[in-house]
């Protein structure tokens, strides 16, 4: 049976499914948006509004509101997955989590992309634990956390590493992050009193970011000497991010690339680096000194 074509016909259906006399939510604008869709998309939208409304009228209403716009830039399978996830959330956790999912379809798409190409912690943790044990000769712990950082004993990675476009690159990025965290413990980042080094600046948080960026440059050079294959991957990924090099930071990098450079050189350069905008290095993570 052909899907209703006019806004009036669709409005009648929406009044039947979404019960506006009880919800006090107007459906005429929704009907106009759905009526403007091509035949196939219109049938798809109405089918899902009807099915969602049988589960919950508010869910049906949200589907009717978002789907016409989403069909312009998203495939139907993704939209189906989004609706089904919301309906599952309602069955499992109640209406509010379901509405949270429906209010932000872009977030669902972003998470979907992350899970499709991202390096999921649970999937890579076993490999990374062995990898870092091989690097360090001791069993550094690896845990999932709210950031990429280390206290010198435990390395923390995000639940999903997904800044890159492909699954292979995201795995490499996670591996580089783990290596950078190991390098902080191996090459002495924490031998400096970071808090004291940053305390004298007007903005100590900005100073700490600058110090961390300096240390990242120094550790990149250490990694290049120790693990040239990984350093090649770092250069490739850096090129892929396309960030233009700041001449001042290039100069800092040259100083810190010297094999004799230590964390004290990063501290020494901090005053100059503080004045510059710190580069955005994809594997830098965070510095959380004790």
């Amino acid at each position: 049976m052909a899907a209703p074509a006019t806004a009036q016909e669709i409005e009648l259906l929406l009044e039947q499914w979404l019960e506006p006399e009880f919800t006090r939510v107007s459906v005429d604008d929704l009907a106009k948006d759905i009526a403007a869709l091509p035949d196939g998309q219109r049938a798809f939208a109405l089918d899902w509004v009807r099915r969602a409304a049988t589960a919950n009228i508010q869910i049906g209403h949200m589907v009717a509101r978002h789907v016409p716009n989403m069909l312009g830039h998203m495939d139907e399978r993704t939209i189906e997955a989004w609706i089904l996830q919301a309906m599952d959330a309602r069955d499992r956790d109640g209406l509010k989590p379901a509405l949270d999912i429906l209010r932000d379809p872009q977030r669902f798409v972003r998470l979907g992309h992350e899970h499709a190409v991202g390096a999921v912690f649970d999937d890579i943790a076993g490999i990374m634990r062995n990898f870092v044990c091989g690097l360090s000769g001791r069993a550094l712990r690896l845990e999932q956390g709210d950031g990429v950082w280390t206290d010198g004993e435990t390395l923390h990675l995000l639940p999903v590493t997904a800044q890159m476009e492909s699954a292979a690159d995201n795995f490499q990025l996670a591996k580089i992050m783990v290596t950078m965290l190991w390098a902080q413990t191996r090459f002495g980042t924490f031998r400096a009193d970071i808090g004291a080094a940053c305390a004298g600046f007007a903005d100590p948080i900005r100073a700490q970011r600058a110090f961390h960026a300096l240390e990242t440059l120094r550790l990149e050079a250490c990694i290049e000497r120790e693990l040239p294959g990984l350093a090649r991957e770092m250069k490739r990924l850096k090129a892929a991010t396309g960030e233009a090099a700041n001449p001042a930071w290039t100069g800092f990098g040259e100083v810190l690339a010297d094999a004799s450079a230590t964390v004290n050189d990063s501290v020494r350069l901090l005053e100059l680096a503080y004045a510059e905008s710190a580069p955005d290095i994809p594997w830098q993570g965070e510095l959380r000194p004790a």
Partner: protein
Amino acid sequence: MQDVELIAPQLAQIDEEPYYHPVGDEMSLFDSAYRNRLPVLLKGPTGCGKTRFVEHMAWKLKRPLVTVACHDDLTAADLVGRYLIVGGQTVWMDGPMAAAVRAGAICYLDEIVEARKDTMVVIHPLADSRRVLPIEKRGELVQAPPGFMLVISYNPGYQSVLKELKQSTRQRFVAFEFDYPDAELEATIVSRETGVSTEIAAKLVKFAAMTRNLKGSGLDEGASTRLLVHAGTLIKDGIPAVAACRAAIAQAVTDEPEMLAAIHEMSSSIF
């Protein structure tokens, strides 16, 4: 039984010097043990050069070498010999140990803990001041000539309650421990054995060190020097380094998928 023909295999000497680079004082210790007719026990992980060392010393001392790779089913009869029927005649065929004793050779029993316990019946009298090999079935007691030397080896890392060397055995031997050489020497050995550059050899050694860090944390053993030589040989033959490391080292040390992946990531990080 006196008219039974005895077949004793002819043992050849090693003509070409097997490459061996000393790590410590093992050569002078071995030499002294040989001159003083003391048996030797070599301890160390697999692939660290124990067998090559014995080959080198046999060449240096100009003695024939009989090597026996011990296994679960190796019996005293396998070492000493057995009667065979050949063309309707009963003949006695010396086993490798009896042949080594008669020829005054160096007899090397590799991974001795793998052998069955009854082998100790023939090892013990050879490894103390008596230096005799009892051949029970022939009613013969073969006195070892001055040139004979008994060498055994085992890997303490593989020991279990069921497979350990008893004190009554180990306390008959002069024992010295082998380990992998230091990084610089190991790279020299790998380069010399395979023909790869010292730079590639150094990277292989660094890779091996990373796998050795995993011993006890998922691996029973890290990559041995022998495996590095295998990988170096493949690289010299044109195989890309990462592929050579995967085939010659990673796949050789583990079957566990996550460990394989981690070891592969190590080699790709180094090369």
